[in-house]
C-alpha cells in the first residue's frame, strides 16, 4: 500500500489493479464472515464503487485519502445495506458459504458465520476486522468512524460473547 495513493493520484487506471490486489483478500474474507455467500459480488461492488468515486476526485484529494479506512467504509456500508435488504425479504433456502481450498478442515465456515451473526452488528464488524482480517485498532476506527477506545472494548466484548457461544455449544 506504500505510495499507492500517490500512484492512484498520478494515474488512476494504471494503479487501480494494484489497489485491488492489495486489498481483495482482506475485503473478501471480511465480507464472507459478515455477509456470507454474496461476499464475492459485494467485494467486486466495493472496488467498482471505489473506482467510480476516485475517478471523480481531484488528484490532491486522492493523495490525502486515508485509503484503507475509506475503502473499508464503502465495504462495510455495502455489507450492512445488503444484510438489511436481505432481512426484509423472506428467504426460503439460505445459501451456504462455499468452502474454499485454503479453508482449514477444522473450521466450519458456515457455523462461524452463524455464530458471528448472533453478535450485535457493531460488535460483529469490529471483531471481524480485528481478528479475521487482522486490521489495527486505528484502521478499524477510521473505517467505522468510532473512537479507538470504543473499538477496543467492542472487540473485547465480542470475543467474550463468542467464547460463551462456544461454551454453550459444547
Amino acid at each position, binding site marked *: 500500500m506504500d505510495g499507492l495513493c500517490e500512484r492512484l493520484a498520478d494515474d488512476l487506471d494504471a494503479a487501480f489493479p494494484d489497489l485491488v490486489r492489495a486489498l481483495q483478500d482482506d475485503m473478501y474474507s471480511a465480507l464472507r464472515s459478515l455477509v456470507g455467500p454474496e461476499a464475492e459480488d459485494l*467485494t*467486486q461492488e466495493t*472496488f467498482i464503487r471505489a473506482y467510480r468515486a476516485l475517478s471523480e476526485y481531484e488528484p490532491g484529494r486522492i493523495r490525502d485519502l486515508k485509503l484503507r479506512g475509506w475503502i473499508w467504509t464503502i465495504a462495510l456500508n455495502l455489507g450492512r445495506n445488503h444484510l438489511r435488504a436481505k432481512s426484509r425479504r423472506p428467504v426460503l433456502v439460505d445459501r451456504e458459504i462455499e468452502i474454499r481450498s485454503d479453508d482449514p478442515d477444522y473450521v466450519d465456515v458456515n457455523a462461524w458465520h452463524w455464530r458471528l451473526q448472533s453478535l450485535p452488528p457493531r460488535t460483529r464488524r469490529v471483531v471481524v476486522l480485528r481478528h479475521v482480517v487482522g486490521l489495527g485498532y486505528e484502521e478499524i476506527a477510521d473505517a467505522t468512524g468510532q473512537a479507538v477506545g470504543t473499538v477496543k472494548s467492542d472487540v473485547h466484548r465480542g470475543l467474550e460473547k463468542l467464547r460463551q457461544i462456544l461454551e454453550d455449544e459444547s
Partner: protein
Amino acid sequence: MTAHLNSPSTAAVESRLGSLRVAAPTSLLTEVELGTGLVDGYTVVASPVGDVIVAFNPSGVSAVDLADEGFADRFRARFVRSLVAAEPPSIWVNRIEEALDRGRPGLLPIDFRSVTPFQQRILELAATIPRGQVRPYSWLARSAGKPGAARAVGSTMARNPVPLIVPCHRVIRSDGKIGNYSLGGPENKWELLSFEGAEPDRIESIAAAGIRLLGSDTTGVFCFPSCHQARRISETHLRRFRSESEAELSGFRPCRICRPG
C-alpha cells in the same frame, strides 16, 4: 481435551477467527476490471462475413472486429485497453444478436467515446439507412448539415468502431460505386450487401454507366438506385439521370423516402 472444549479461551476464539481469512477468488480482479471498464470483455458471434468479436464495457458495445488472430492487438492499439473473454450483461445478449442481424443498434448502447461528436453524429445517421439499401458519402454529409464534408464522412466510416452494428457497409462512394470497407476489405462489403439483398452488382453497373439516380415518368419522382421505390419502376417508365440537377431540370422531384436531393 474435554476440559478445553468445556471452557474455550478467548485465545482459541481468536485463532479460529484468524483462520477464516482466505484468498479472494482468482476471478475477482478481472470482474472488477470489467465492472470499472478498465478492460473490455468480448464475445464471439457469427456473421455473414465469418465470426466477429463484439467488445463491450459498462458504457456499451465498444468494438466489432473480425475474430482472427490479430483482433486483441488491434483493439489494444486503438483503444489502449485489454480484452478478456466474458459474458455480456444478460440484457445485452439478445440486443447484440438483433443489432448484428438488423444492422442497426436498436436498444443496444454503443460506446462512441473513441470517435469525435461529429463522427458519432455521422455514424448515428448511417445507422438509419434501411437494410438492403445504400447511400453515398455525400448524402450523409448533407444529412448532417455539412454538405462539403463528404471526405470527412469517408474517413468516419473507416473509423467506425462497430461495423455491422452501425452499417457502414451501406455507405458507398459519392459516384455510386461500392467503394472500400474497413472490416476486412471490399469483398466483405459486397458479401454483406448481397446477403441483405442490395444487389451490389446492379448498384455497381448502374454507377459504371455514369447513372446516379433513377426516376419514374408515371410519378415524376427520382430516387437513389437502391431505394425500394426505384427498384419497383418498370423498364418502360424508367428514367436514368446523371445528376440531381438533370433530374430536376427534367421536372422530377426527389423521393421523400430516400431523399436524394
